């Protein structure tokens, strides 16, 4: 009995795989609609003017960002945790009835939370803070979901057989702690339902409404400390956790350097939080904070590139696998986009560059080369790697995966190149003066000029969505009709059908 390999239990991982795909489709579809609304404003009334309140750009925009962050990405993080966690800690969830129950409860409450978020954002119930739009009742639900995940993480660690924590576990722990701290402090708010008028009346006004604990500049400071680092601990840290597990597994290669992973991890932890100030350059926060934000953003290149280079060098001597396997392609291009994005960000954080880039589409472009190229590619690669192992079936189609890869890569390239041009064009036009020192352009001139780039961006986003639907189809077919495989076929490279 002792020598029998562990049977891992993927029940919860499977559930989160499902929500990764569903919320991914929803979030990206809304993104494509938004993109075309900017190019063709008629799309704002796509379901008729009667429903315009619910289909116009401003109402949909938070739905897009939150569906992609808290839906697609977080689901992906949870799905991979419930897969990777068991395997690197050498313990099965089936061994603990308690952890199994917590895992399932985590999923159920997560679904309820997602439904509440969708409903409230459509209704326009929002605090306006980016990626923290939820009012206090939903905030409480999110905290409960997060604590449940924390119990899952530390519970599994508590009953582990492998005593030494693998690199991926470091990053999952950091994700849990980072988001917990940031979310709690940024969402400090006082419900207005507690108010009592001098006449003694209570309980009037919307029960869910609240007012921020911080005002003005302080509020901005806390919000961008959160906003920037929600990116760190949602879009970087857990995705690095994934690639540290899935790339060595799929390629059969050992991590290039343990020391480099140490340096990158502790460097990233220490440096990332300082960089939030780069969202507030030339604002009313004190100058020294803005400068700190700039400087630490540049320093951040070091740990970011440390991880990315560690990944690329892991493929040393095995580069033929990049040509042979579309799954490896996703991960290698993902880390390349990670390098690209973590160089672009610090450039935008330099004060003189920020003066042009801030408030423009270049920032939007930056977010998307990171999220589409790095986060999206890595999560899809992780799910592709997991699918044969959790469903005990071969991936349905390798050629479909390869086609998807090229379509999405083209989509990402169209997206960020068009947004570069749009952003820099607009930034330069805003500041242009004529020979007499008057503004050279009215604001609307700087909007109409963007039409071609907005159109190209819409096409790029659409290509990415098409690729994502191919991914969803491929996974669905894998689950239902993929050839059944034996455990022995699941050592490294994932089995794929033609």
């Amino acid at each position, binding site marked *: 009995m002792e020598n029998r390999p562990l049977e891992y239990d993927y029940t919860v991982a499977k559930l989160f795989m499902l929500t990764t795909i569903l919320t991914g489709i929803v979030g990206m579809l809304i993104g494509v609609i938004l993109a075309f609304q900017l190019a063709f404003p008629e799309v704002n009334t796509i379901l008729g003017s009667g429903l315009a309140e619910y289909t116009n750009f401003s109402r949909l925009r938070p739905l897009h960002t939150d569906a992609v962050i808290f839906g697609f990405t977080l689901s992906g993080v949870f799905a991979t945790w419930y897969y990777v966690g068991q395997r690197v800690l050498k313990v099965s969830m089936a061994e603990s009835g308690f952890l199994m129950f917590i895992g399932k409860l985590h999923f159920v409450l997560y679904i309820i939370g997602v439904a509440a978020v969708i409903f409230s954002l459509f209704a326009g119930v929002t605090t306006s803070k980016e990626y923290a739009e939820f009012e206090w009742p939903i905030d409480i639900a999110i905290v409960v979901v997060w604590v449940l995940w924390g119990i899952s993480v530390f519970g599994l660690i508590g009953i582990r057989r492998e005593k030494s924590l693998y690199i991926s576990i470091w990053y999952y722990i950091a994700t849990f702690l980072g988001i917990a701290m940031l979310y709690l402090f940024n969402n400090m708010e006082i419900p207005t339902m507690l108010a009592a008028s001098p006449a003694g009346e209570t309980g009037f006004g919307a029960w869910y409404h609240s*007012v921020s604990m911080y005002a003005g500049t302080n509020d901005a400071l806390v919000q961008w400390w959160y906003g920037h680092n929600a990116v760190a601990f949602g879009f970087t840290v857990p995705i690095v956790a994934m690639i540290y597990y899935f790339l060595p597994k799929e390629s059969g290669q050992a991590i290039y350097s343990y020391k480099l992973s140490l340096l990158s991890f502790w460097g990233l932890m220490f440096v990332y939080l300082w960089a939030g100030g780069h969202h507030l350059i030339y604002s009313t926060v004190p100058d020294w904070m803005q400068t700190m934000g700039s400087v630490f953003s540049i320093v951040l290149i070091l740990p970011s590139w440390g991880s990315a280079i560690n990944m690329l060098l892991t493929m040393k001597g095995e580069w033929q696998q990049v040509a042979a396997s579309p799954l490896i392609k996703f991960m290698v291009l993902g880390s390349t986009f990670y390098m690209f994005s973590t160089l672009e960000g610090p450039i935008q954080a330099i004060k003189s560059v920020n003066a042009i880039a801030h408030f423009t589409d270049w920032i939007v472009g930056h977010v998307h080369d990171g999220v589409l190229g790095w986060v999206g590619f890595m999560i899809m690669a992780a799910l592709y790697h997991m699918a044969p192992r959790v469903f005990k079936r071969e991936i349905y189609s390798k050629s479909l995966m390869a086609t998807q890869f090229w379509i999405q890569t083209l989509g990402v390239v169209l997206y960020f190149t068009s947004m570069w041009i749009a952003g820099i064009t607009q930034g330069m036009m805003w500041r242009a003066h004529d020979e007499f020192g008057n503004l050279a352009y009215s604001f609307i001139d700087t909007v109409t000029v963007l039409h071609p780039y907005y159109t190209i961006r819409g096409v790029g986003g659409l290509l990415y969505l098409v690729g994502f639907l191919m991914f969803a189809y491929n996974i669905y077919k894998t689950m239902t009709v993929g050839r059944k495989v034996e455990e022995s076929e699941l050592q490294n490279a994932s089995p794929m059908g033609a």
Partner: protein
Amino acid sequence: MFHWLEKHPFFFAVGVFIAIAFAGLIEIVPNFAQASRPVIGTTPYSTLELAGRHVYIKNSCNACHSQLIRPFKSETDRYGHYSLSGEYAYDRPFLWGSKRTGPDLMRVGNYRTTDWHENHMKNPPSVVPGSIMPAYTWMFKNIADINTAYAEQLTVAQFFAVPYNKEVPMRDGTTKIVKMGASVADANALALEEAKVIAADMKDQDVKDAVANGQIPEIVALIAYMNSLK
């Protein structure tokens, strides 16, 4: 040390937490008291203005419009004096935005009128040819939530000492009092009084009729808020 940490998850987590919490403590805490002090001439929002601010937030206007004028000639030429920290002392939440798909609105009250906003919100390209902003026709029908605005006024007056019903110094040496109702009915009456002034400058008959009947459409509250941004 690192090998040891990797075998002791609790101490590992403590180490990570210290590493990440450090920056926040040093960057955010020292500035808190100073940045929250209002500059002279900054007044709290009236009930109607606050209700309008809620309409602004409900429709995520901040997704496309900033309220932050940076200290560059091109920005002060276009939008007016650059922003001062104390001007935001009563902004909960702050509404700086992160993207200017449309122009900055920090001082829009200085150069746009009620009439301009009415036409613009109904059909933006009719006022600004080439505009990609959608129309916000439902704001002419939806009724603004005055009670919630009043509840928020009471909350900030109680918890953050926002000076309602108190003399606030103005730039010209005079003082101004922003009134807050003593009861829900009183607050609604104050808001309606303000709404009547706005509605008098508007053309939409449904809006005028609603205000005459004691109801305040969202557009009226929003315009009151826009006009207050100076």
